[in-house]
Structure formats: structure tokens, C-alpha cells
């Protein structure tokens, strides 16, 4: 194994991490504000990618414009879903899980009937390679790393600096305590669903640019997102970042050391071992 293979796989690890973190942050926001796990999160990711596919291919707009439009549309869908579907189920873990499984079926089949089952693809705007110390690094992967971590930084700033962000933290730590300060829980839930779905849409669109889009692509994202938030600690935003980095890097690096199957096993083994020592996750509160 040469150094450039290693660097390339580390970069792959970081770009997987970027995607996992974006997906996991959305799950975390919705979980900590609304006390539900929104299992159709992967479908939002998938539709976000299809949005970019249709806007670039049918409308002929460029990727970035398409990304913005698709992201806003998915954020809007998040608000609609909050209002119509998840608001009455807030805090009801089991019912919300069942409702969101129903939503998975509906959304997948709607897309299937419109777009068909064949994978589609669109061009990544990031092409070519960047040479650092004689090692070629592909721009499309690097762009995911930059996007992912840029958005994470923006989200941290948003939560620290804005009133809405502070209200989100407050609700996640004490719901009634937050309501008694005059925080409108309905409004903040809407904001959380908007942000969560927007982040998922961005993640889906970035993945779609490198690989392809299909109606079932959300399952993988959901599985990774759930693994990340369990590893990181349920409801913890820094936890989602650290968990995403760990799982992303394992996924990126292990395949060059061994076969893909064994790499998968080692990945899950590592998570199980970490959770044995910290059952509440890496930065979870007891």
C-alpha cells in the first residue's frame, strides 16, 4: 500500500464522515426538539438528490442553484410534515416511528412512480484533481469535506449565537422549563424540521453528484445516521460530529487494510466496543 492510496482513503473517510454528520445532525435536531425519531429522514435525503437531478437536467440550471432550490424545498417539506404529521405525535416515540415508516413507503413509491427505479446521475460540478505533496486528491470528495464541515461550523454558530438556536438547546434540556420562558415549542419544532430536512437534502445532493440517485438510496443514509447518533450520544450535536468522524473514517480506511466484508464487521465491532464502555454514547449525558 502506498502513501497516496492511504491519503486517498483517509479523504474518502472524511467525505463519508461529512455526509454521515449532515444526516445525523438532522436526526439529532428533530430527536432533541420533538422527542421523536423521524425514520423517513433518508427519504428526504433521497428526494433532495432527485430535486437536484431534475432541476439540473430538466430545467438546465447549474448545480449550485439547483442545490439551493432543492434544499429550500426539502426544508419546506419538513415544515409541512411537522405541521401535518409529527406535531400531534411529539414525544410519542412509538407512534412517530410507525407514522414515519408509513411516510417512507409513501415517499419512496411516489418517487418510484415519477422517476422509475433505474439509478439516475448528474454531473458533479467539482471535477479534476488537486495535487498536494505529489498526491492527487479528487475535488468531488474534497468538496464534500469542505461542504460538510462548513455546514457543521455554521450550525454550531447558529446554535450559539442566535435566539432560535439557544431556544433549541433549551428545549432539548428541559421542555417545560423552556416553555415557561415563553419559547414557542411549535415554532421551534418547525425550525428544527426545516433545518434537519435541509441538511439531509444537501447530503443527498452531494452524494448524488458522486454516485447516483435511486429511490432506495435513503436506507443506507438512515442506517448510518442512526449508528452515528447512537455512537455519539442521543441528542448531542458534538456527539453526532464525533460519531460521524469515527464511523466515516472506519468506513474509509478499513477497506484498504482488508476486504470490504471484514471492514464492515470491524466497523460495527468497534462501535459495539465503544458502547460497551460508554453506553450513553461518546458525549451523551447519563
Amino acid at each position, binding site marked *: 500500500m502506498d502513501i497516496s492510496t492511504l491519503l486517498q482513503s483517509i479523504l474518502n473517510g472524511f467525505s463519508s464522515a461529512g455526509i454521515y454528520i449532515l444526516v445525523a445532525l438532522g436526526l439529532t435536531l428533530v430527536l432533541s426538539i420533538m422527542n421523536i425519531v423521524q425514520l423517513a429522514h433518508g427519504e428526504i435525503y433521497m428526494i433532495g438528490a432527485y430535486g437536484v437531478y431534475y432541476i439540473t437536467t430538466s430545467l438546465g440550471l447549474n448545480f449550485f442553484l439547483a442545490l439551493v432550490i432543492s434544499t429550500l424545498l426539502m426544508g419546506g417539506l419538513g415544515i409541512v410534515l411537522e405541521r401535518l404529521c409529527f406535531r400531534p405525535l411529539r414525544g410519542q416515540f412509538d407512534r412517530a416511528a410507525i407514522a414515519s415508516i408509513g411516510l417512507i413507503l409513501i415517499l419512496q413509491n411516489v418517487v418510484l412512480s415519477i422517476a422509475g427505479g433505474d439509478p439516475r446521475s448528474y454531473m458533479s460540478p467539482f471535477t479534476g484533481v488537486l495535487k498536494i505533496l505529489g498526491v492527487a486528491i479528487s475535488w468531488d470528495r474534497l468538496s464534500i469535506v469542505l461542504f460538510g464541515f462548513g455546514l457543521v461550523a455554521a450550525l454550531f454558530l447558529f446554535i450559539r449565537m442566535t*435566539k432560535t438556536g*439557544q*431556544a433549541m*438547546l*433549551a428545549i432539548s*434540556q*428541559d421542555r*417545560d*422549563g*423552556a*416553555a*415557561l*420562558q*415563553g*419559547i*414557542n415549542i411549535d415554532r421551534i419544532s418547525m425550525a428544527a424540521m426545516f433545518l434537519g430536512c435541509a441538511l439531509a437534502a444537501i447530503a443527498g445532493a452531494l452524494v448524488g453528484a458522486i454516485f447516483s440517485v435511486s429511490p432506495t438510496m435513503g436506507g443506507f443514509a438512515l442506517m448510518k445516521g442512526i449508528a452515528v447518533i447512537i455512537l455519539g450520544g442521543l441528542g448531542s450535536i458534538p456527539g453526532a460530529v464525533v460519531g460521524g468522524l469515527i464511523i466515516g473514517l472506519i468506513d474509509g480506511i478499513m477497506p484498504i487494510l482488508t476486504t470490504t466484508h471484514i471492514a464492515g464487521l470491524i466497523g460495527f465491532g468497534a462501535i459495539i466496543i465503544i458502547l460497551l464502555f460508554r453506553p450513553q454514547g461518546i458525549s451523551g*449525558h447519563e
Partner: protein
Amino acid sequence: MLKLKDVTVRYETAEAVRGVSIEVPEGSVISVIGANGAGKSTILKAISGLVPLYSGEIEFSGQKINRMAVNQIVDLGVVQVPEGRRLFPYMSVMANIKLGAYLRRDKRGMMADMEEVFRLFPRLKERSNQKAGSLSGGEQQMLAIGRGLMARPKLLMMDEPSLGLAPVVIDLLADTIRTINQSGITVLLVEQNASLVTRVSQKCYVIEVGRVVLEGNVQELMADDSVRRAFLG
């Protein structure tokens, strides 16, 4: 200022408050006293809009508030310092205090009120960067009250603020409640601690299994040994 008229609150399993009528005149300190499970917290939750009324009516400054949303009620100046403090434990003392002023837009007034809170509780200023969850019980209660004051309340409701506090801290709490009241804020105090109630309030309602069983002058009620034994254990 605040009037509860024949208020009944039902949970799925039980009727927690039955036909309670309470009146809190402007400028007063009124207490509600009763044993565990009597329905005291439920009364305050109903006033704040956290639980719906089954029947009856709640009026604040002549306005019916029992169908309003929690945040609208806070906006009217009806503020609660809840049982168990309900702080945001992983946020700083400062962030907790700022969240108390969540609905306010007047930056300058907020800064002035924050100074006032720090003057009232100097410990909070010293610890303003610490996480709220790392404070002692007494400091947490100060923070909960300070956070409540940041909303610029007209009526401040406190649910068992003495819970878990040492006697010297309860003395401090009594002083604090008097100071708050003297600054023009009406206080509705829910307590099990009879001595705190006697020290700060004028009129008191005794609650037993969801009903008002006695009401009247605090000194007179508390002088009656049978009242103390029967309702406060």
C-alpha cells in the same frame, strides 16, 4: 390581579384540582400550602397554560387567559419559577439568565435587569460562565428566580422554592421574596414550608386533595396547631 374561578383540572387518571377559587390582589404575596400530591403544582401549571382546564376560568388583569398559549401568558407578565427549578443544566448561568428574557426586545432594559439580578444574587455573577447544573441547590434556586425576573414579571409564581435548601438559605430566600415584592411584583407562592409562608405572605390558601379547605390570614392559620398538623404533616 389574578383570579381563579372554580377551576378543575383532570389528568387522564385522576382529578388533581377540584373547583378551586383563588384571588391574588395586585401587590400582595399570596401562598398556597398543602401536602405532597395536594394539587399545588397543577394549579400553577394551569395558570401558566401547561395543562388545560377541565372547567372554570382564569383571569389576569381582567383578561381571560385560560385558553392562551404558554408563551402568550408569559408575555402578559405571568411568570413561573417551577418546582425543581427546571434550569437548562448544560447551558451556562449567563445563557439561562438570557433565556429568561426570551420574549423581550428592549436590549437596554434587559441589561439593566441583568445588573439588578446580579446585584440581588452576587453568586450568580461570579459563576456566570459555569454550567447551571454544576451549581449548588441554593444557587440553582437563585438562578431559577433570576431567570424568572428577567422576563419582567407582573406576577411571579414560585413552586416550592425552599425544596432541598438548608435553613440559612431559606432565610435568604425569604428576604429575596420580600425584596421582589417590594419592587412592585405580585407573588404567588406555593409551599410546604410553613415557616417561609408565615414570614413572607399575608394570605394563604390550604389545599387538600385538590380542594381549598381553608383560607385566611397566614398568622391566624399558622397559629392554629391543628392546621399545621393536619395539612403540613
